[in-house]
């Protein structure tokens, strides 16, 4: 029904999602091309997290279509979606605080059959994030907030993501750490992974994104290249401040 999906990591078409009686997403459409960082901006409750959750297969879609890397995944189970390389780093990090850091990373590779691949990817994560390597045997809960966020991203990397979906990675973090996280995201993107970034912190998000969407009440109200949106007075008024 749409153009050939080659070069498109994620295509959401006209998605409707209900929570009970609440119409959380109303015909939302988003596209992430391969190699892009796309930011999804919006207020709390606008439907950003719901969008990610329905891509992940955690929240069922009422109608509409979700296509990941050319395949329809609208009805796919969460593990199928992870298996296709669409990895979701949930809001609030949600690391396993009583498992060790190493185990957390291993869980990232849960669906990867080949243990050698998992070990190799973990080694790569340790290279990028040496703080984690130092503390690999410690429980995840002993990490500071920023380190936990790093671990959450690292854990997603072990899964071998083709599309990484990050939900509010900057939440509750100090400005310095936010900068580091954003740098990490850029770095991951440069290595070829597409990124869908959900952020409240519009300024930080727009700085690293190629394109962005603004979600309000479950609908896309604005979209365009990040630089254009950053200059749009409507975005400035609502999300960036004067």
């Amino acid at each position, binding site marked *: 029904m749409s153009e050939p999906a080659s070069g498109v990591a994620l295509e959401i078409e006209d998605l409707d999602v209900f929570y009970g009686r609440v119409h959380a997403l109303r015909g939302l459409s988003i596209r992430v091309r391969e190699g892009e960082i796309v930011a999804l901006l919006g207020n709390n409750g606008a439907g950003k997290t719901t969008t990610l959750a329905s891509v992940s297969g955690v929240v069922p879609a009422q109608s509409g279509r979700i296509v990941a890397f050319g395949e329809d995944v609208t009805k796919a189970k969460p593990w199928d979606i992870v298996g296709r390389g669409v990895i979701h780093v949930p809001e609030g990090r949600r690391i396993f605080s009583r498992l060790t850091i190493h185990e957390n990373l291993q869980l990232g590779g849960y669906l990867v059959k080949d243990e050698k691949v998992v070990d190799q990817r973990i080694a790569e994560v340790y290279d990028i994030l040496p703080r984690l390597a130092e503390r690999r045997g410690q429980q995840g809960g002993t990490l500071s907030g920023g380190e936990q966020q790093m671990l959450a991203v690292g854990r997603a990397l072990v899964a071998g993501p083709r599309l990484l979906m990050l939900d509010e990675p900057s939440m509750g973090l100090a400005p310095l750490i936010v900068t580091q996280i954003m740098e990490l995201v850029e770095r991951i993107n440069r290595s070829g992974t597409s990124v869908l970034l959900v952020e409240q912190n519009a300024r930080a998000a727009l700085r690293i994104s190629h394109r962005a969407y603004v979600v309000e*009440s479950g609908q896309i109200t604005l979209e365009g290249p990040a630089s254009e949106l950053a200059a749009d007075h409507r975005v400035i008024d609502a999300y960036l401040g004067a």
Partner: protein
Amino acid sequence: MFWNRKKAPTTAGTARAGVLNRLLGDRRLGWIGFAVALLAPFVSATNYSLSVMTSAALFVMLAVGLNIVVGYCGLLDLGYAAFFAIGAYASGILATTYGWSLLATVPVVLVAAVLAGIIIGGPTLRLRSDYLAIVTLGFGEIIRITANNLDVTGGPSGIYGIPGLDLFGLDLSDPVAFYYAVVVIVALAVVGAARLGRSRMGRAWRFIREDEDAAEAMGIHTYKLKLAAYIAGAVWGGLAGILFGAQLTAISPQSFTFLWSALILMAVVLGGMGSTPGVVLGAIFVSLLPELLRDAADYRFFVFGVLLIVVMIFRPQGLWPSTASERAPDRRPDPAEKEEAWQAQ
């Protein structure tokens, strides 16, 4: 402005909850229930139906008492029968060995129940809920086994010959009179528990159930209030114990097994924790069902078990859940006015 400042509504099913609540929260319902209880003997007043109905009423009292602990305060109690036992034994011993009238034993039972509540609640209420569950279970077993082992409690055969209820010379031991006495007392107990639930203390219990730390931060001494819930539950259980002894004329440790505690808890959860009409309904359900299934003989408990599963699957919040909602506050500024309030200063 093109973006909407108002949030997407996230109030799932409030309209439905509102209607239900208006229907259920109505006090008339209580009166109807009371009237039904009063009129039931006019439909059937055989010894059997009276005995079953009296038992059901007592069970209601127990469930309402446990509801204070579990439903309001969120403390899982798997040994509630212990308080029931303490009431029954205290009054039974005084009535048989020392010849007291049951009415005279009430103060003693109250004291005993309060003491028991403090003794078991005191050291253990700091525990997390699952641990509390096993501790209360253990306490229930300790009480039962102790009653089984001591001479003063009559050992395994228990105490018999407990006199009927006698209120200031008015003999209430006839099944019909006793039934009415029980219905009135139980109705008072239900109303009392419901009123406690709606008071400052009842709210504090709910705060503790929802979030203990936040409650503590509001100046609520969570430990004292938990203990209060425990004691209130113990008092309800203890008083029900007196009536239990009066009804059966004999009590034995067999009446206070874990199964009993589980059944009372079941009534609370099945009905809807924290909801008075729900718990009353649940108690009647749990109490009557095995009797109604009596003719199913061998299949009785099997059917009972399957029914429990089915009911919980289809109504996991209980048959008649409590809903958080109250009538719209009388004075509410209109939105425009509020908007101004924000701009002010």
